[in-house]
């Protein structure tokens, strides 16, 4: 039984087939990477999984449940969290508040207890903060805890976004280009964290990435897309030596 499975997944935007009949399976606890040239449909697949887009065809199953028609806000509580390619943090809030929003899918409160801020509400808030603190410790964000996002450099924002996804306590985490815009050292840190997320936290990782160094370091399986179609699939080494893949990237 596979952990996550996409069967014959497809989406059209008018005449453009952004994703066209893609099949893949992710095993629990592995790091699965999607690579491909620009416009290959990598981020579109992420948006399909997080249900921002409705797929035209195909099905997705996650942890034994069909998620093809689940509403987008219910995805997080099923255990799928994501980051965004161009960072979608809540700019006018502190790091702590951003991470607390990541706890939203675990909050069970009603409006009246919120307006009165009842003792049980306070207890729940403290429990959320304890969880958030674990993530802050894990990603070494203590220093930025109270900073507003607008005042943070790009590299730190990237980490905060990863932290926000971790705060939802996901089973599957989708990382959209975790190393884009990072320098060599930050990319190295990111690769350690991805490894830790996989091994220590036991979270399955699905990522889109261009940096082949990072891909070969952390990935178990690599899927190559081109023009919305599957081009190759296998271990990072196999894929890099595949003549079709070389042709897609470099031309003939």
């Amino acid at each position: 039984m596979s952990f996550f499975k996409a069967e014959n997944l497809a989406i059209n935007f008018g005449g453009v087939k952004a994703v066209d009949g893609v099949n893949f399976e992710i095993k629990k606890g592995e790091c699965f990477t999607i690579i491909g040239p620009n416009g290959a449909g990598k981020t579109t697949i992420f948006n399909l999984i997080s249900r921002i887009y409705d797929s035209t065809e195909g099905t997705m199953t996650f942890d034994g449940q069909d998620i093809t028609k689940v509403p987008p806000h219910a995805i997080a509580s099923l255990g799928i969290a994501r980051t965004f390619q161009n960072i979608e943090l809540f700019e006018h809030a502190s790091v702590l508040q951003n991470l607390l929003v990541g706890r939203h899918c675990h909050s069970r409160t009603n409006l009246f207890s919120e307006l009165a801020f009842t003792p049980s509400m306070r207890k729940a808030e403290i429990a959320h903060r304890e969880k958030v603190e674990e993530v802050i410790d894990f990603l070494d964000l203590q220093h930025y805890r109270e900073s507003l996002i607008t005042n943070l450099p790009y590299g730190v924002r990237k980490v905060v976004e990863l932290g926000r996804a971790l705060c939802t306590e996901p089973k599957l985490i989708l990382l959209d280009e975790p190393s884009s815009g990072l320098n060599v050292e930050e990319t190295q840190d990111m690769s350690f964290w991805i490894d830790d997320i996989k091994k220590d936290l036991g979270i399955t990782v699905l990522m889109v990435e261009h940096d082949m160094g990072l891909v070969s370091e952390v990935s178990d399986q690599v899927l190559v897309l081109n023009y919305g179609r599957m081009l190759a699939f296998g271990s990072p080494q196999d894929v890099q030596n595949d003549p079709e893949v070389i042709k897609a990237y470099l031309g003939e």
Partner: protein
Amino acid sequence: MRFLFKTDYNQDIRIAKHSGYYWSYGLLLLIVVAAPYFLEGYYIGQMTQLFIIAMAGVGLMLLAGYTGLVSLGHAAFFGIGAYTEAVLTSNGVPLPFMEEPVIFPFVISMPLAAIFAALAGVVIGIPVLRLTGIYLAIATFAFALIIEEILSRWESVTNGYTGLLVESLYIGDTELTDGAPFYFLCLGLLVLVILMSINLLRSPTGRAMMAIRDSEVSAQSMGVNLARVKTTAFALSAGITGLAGALFAHKLGFLSPESFTVFQSLELLVLVVVGGIGSLHGAIFGAMFVLALPQGLAILKDYLPTAIAETPGMEPFIFGFILVLVIIFEPYGIYGRWLKIKHYFQMFPVYKKATFKRQKAYMKSERLK
């Protein structure tokens, strides 16, 4: 400069971040509680009006400042609250099995006014869920026009342009809706509304509102139900504004549809922007501004040459001009300026001008919106 060392999660959650809060806000509360004992009647009336407008401002601030949904139609909710209160406490409502129309006591009528306005908020909130920005502003604007029209045409209830007299309320022999008692009623309700808003903003729903304001797509991916939170924000905002409207009905003593026009919606929006968008302080500062400006202009007129002072449309012009200046030079309004002044004295003598400079946002993906 005070440095906070946090050792407890409660320190994050607490409303008063440090002991200084008790002194400053305690003093403020002492002053407003003592005010009726040394102010003249006129000023008590003005302060009461300030509290009412500030309450409506808090309502709109929750929606426009915290959820990022700009409404150009809040006078409608204000009007619904006011008319509900007037009808319930003055004319009464004919109920089955009752020979005379039932007149409600204010402890029931005021919550009912807030609930009616909140329901109206849901009615407008649900169909415009998909709209943001200028389109939402236009939709709420249209809604306000419809309500204005209903208020003037539904003569059997609202009396149309003839107007509706609002009865004064009494507890025993003391009149509740005038002078010091009304002052304390409005102050108490304003404090209650502010406390509830602060509570909301430190709870999951409040954070979800701010998340929607900053990035809808990632809020959704974090499990925020956009439709639900937006509708809640609309209902709460309308409910608070409706409660302010109910108080306003007693302040005016006489209601006509002219009191709830588009101009008043604009005034509320100016309040939110000039006061400081995205802060509850801003609602209070904005209310002071909106209330003080016409009076300031009236005083100024005496000193201006007649040709300028008598020009029609002088007041709206100055209003608009200040709004533009604030948006360009102080996007966080009076509250933003207040923070800067406070910071200047805290950091004295090493204040750096760049402290409040914000970096431009990095690339923002527009594709998902």
